[in-house]
């Protein structure tokens, strides 16, 4: 996307661009590329935050607000629609997409949570969201292993929604992240079983599953290797602005992990976080 030395200027406001004269189009396209890479970077950061049981809340909130801001601007100038369209056509057979769409729709209908993070104000919003969700899978999948993982993760996302639907009590809700380990068991075939409304008993059942499940560490490693490469790709893509000392991909992961580096602290990749919002953002817009 970016060649080395590409001038990056984020301080330009979107409005200014439309007022640019002859070079306007070129500037605008480079601006949107920059904005896109900023969005990518933010989403990766969010995803890494999201893996921690207790991310730095201030940082997560600021990054999420940045994503929201970029999204708003992209929605405003229509590029958001283009992004989702592009993903829609990116190497996915229509039939596959259709199946997933149906599944996602159903699960979404079930959780009655207010949709804070509406993608765009257009009709058939749900369908577009689904496309984006589908993209989340199709784009980030790198191998079959992570494919299984990601599918599991999605199942778990719906689970969360259901959980939060049940547990209005805040403290219980916070504790419910305990149940997050279960998604190792869930793969695409199991989705149907996760869709039914859960009783509290079932929620507790997940605790047991978690305890008995094979160690999350292997899944974690795979996940990290996946993130590594993607971050690295992004990194090379962004070489236009490497003047400041920067962290290597591994440093970044190190710094995100708790200081003592025991794998258990990082917890399962799909652990429950208080920020349901981040879930939604990830569901909706990852994949660019």
């Amino acid at each position, binding site marked *: 996307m970016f060649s080395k030395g590409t001038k990056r200027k984020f301080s330009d406001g979107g409005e200014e661009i439309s007022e640019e004269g002859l070079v306007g189009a070129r500037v605008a396209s480079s601006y949107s590329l920059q904005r896109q890479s900023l969005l990518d970077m933010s989403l990766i950061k969010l995803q890494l935050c999201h893996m921690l049981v207790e991310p730095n809340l*201030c940082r997560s909130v*600021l990054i999420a*607000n940045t994503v929201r801001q970029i999204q708003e601007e992209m929605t405003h100038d229509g590029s958001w629609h283009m992004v989702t369209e592009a993903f829609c056509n990116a190497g996915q057979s229509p039939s596959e997409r259709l199946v997933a769409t149906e599944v996602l729709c159903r699960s979404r209908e079930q959780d009655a949570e207010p949709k804070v993070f509406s993608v765009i104000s257009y009709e058939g919003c749900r369908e577009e969201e689904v496309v984006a969700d589908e993209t989340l899978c199709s784009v980030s999948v790198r191998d079959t292993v992570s494919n299984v993982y990601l599918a599991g993760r999605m199942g778990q996302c719906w689970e969360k929604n259901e959980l939060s639907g049940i547990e209005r009590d805040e403290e219980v809700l916070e*504790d419910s992240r305990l149940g997050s380990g279960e998604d190792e068991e869930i793969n695409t075939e199991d989705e149907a079983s996760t869709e039914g409304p859960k009783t509290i008993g079932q929620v507790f059942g997940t605790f047991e599953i978690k305890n008995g499940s094979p160690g999350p560490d292997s899944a974690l490693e795979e996940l990290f290797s996946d993130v590594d490469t993607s971050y690295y790709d992004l990194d090379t893509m962004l070489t236009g602005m490497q003047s400041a*000392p*920067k962290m290597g991909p591994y440093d970044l992961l190190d*710094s995100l992990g708790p200081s*003592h580096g025991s794998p258990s602290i990082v917890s399962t990749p799909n652990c429950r976080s208080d*920020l*349901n919002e981040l879930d939604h953002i990830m569901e909706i817009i990852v994949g660019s």
Partner: protein
Amino acid sequence: MEEESDSRKINNSFLRDHNYATEADIISTVEFNSTGELLATGDKGGRVVVFQREQESKNQPHRRGEYNVYSTFQSHEPEFDYLKSLEIEEKINKIRWLPQQNAAYFLLSTNDKTVKLWKISERDKRPEGYNLKDEDGRIRDPSTITSLRVPVLQPMDLMVEAMPRRVFSNAHTYHINSISVNSDYETFMSTDDLRINLWNLEITNRSFNIVDIKPANMEELTEVITAAEFHPHQCNTFVYSSSKGSIRLCDMRASALCDNHSKFFEEPEDPSNRSFFSEIISSISDVKFSHSGRYLMTRDYLTVKVWDLNMESKPLETYQVHDYLRSKLCSLYENDCIFDKFECVWNGSDSVIMTGSYNNFFRMFDRNTKRDVTLEASRENSKPRAILKPRKVCVGGKRRKDEISVDSLDFSKKILHTAWHPYENIIAVAATNNLYIFQDKVN
């Protein structure tokens, strides 16, 4: 504003190999007590090191008031929350001294979840001549006790003891970022990302929630509390700052739950500087009342601002700490430096303010003369007892001698924590695992 680096650099790693600094040695907070006699540091390893100022001696005038290690203790240990399957770091986030009321000293230290009250006291005598036990503390056989004697206190080498007196736990779901002792000396507050709790210093099993900004639905969360502090004289007044760049002043007399502020300090955004990073760089990392209680100082990523308590619409003064970073925000976002939490401090007379920057640089701003200076805390570039040379960062164009270009700044060497003696010109600057103490030139 030239300072002499009087005290030699006190390396916190005295406990271990001098050249081997671990993550645990990184200093995470610095605080003078109310007389300035003691200086406490906390580190990522959960230790607290207290330094005491040496008595002045006539025959060594250059050793005026050096700070030496007085006591070292492990304040917090790493813990594991089994319910949440979560490790609680031992890192000391803040230290606050209580005003001294007897021979002993008391301080509060906190990590992410738990506040502890420590008593630091001296002992230079020990009782000798017990009847029922011998000198080693073993119980004596009663049949051998044939006479009674009066135990006596014998002088011994000075021993400094640190003992935990209270543990204030289980009140915070999120990470504690601030603690502040009230001017009534009976209560203190602890602040996490979404809530502020009020404690009585004597009562550990109960606290009162005085601010709660947690939305019912966490998806709606867009703002967090970043710091909070009590007014230095009015025990009912406190302020807290937010990640959106605003400061709220609350009056506890108004209601038990201070969700409604009495004053709201916020500066409208400058449209010419608008970018995707506007909100991140306006997030307030520290808020401090002036000693007089008339002003507030806030630090955001690029500036430090002084507010008059009587003017909410805009700050009285704005000082640029490192404006040359404005063009580097994207890189700083990428390497996460943009989320660094710089603190700020007042001098004793509220006329000078100090805050940190990168490359081991720290900045001082004289509010009266409007002069500012950039100084460097580094072992390589300043020798003990040498006068600190002002440093200059050059922005673009030609770099002059003695200047450092923006591109060669070391962003891993950041000065986040500094402290100023309550009434003398002595400052303590924490640069990763080193503590530097500078003071005014000795005449």
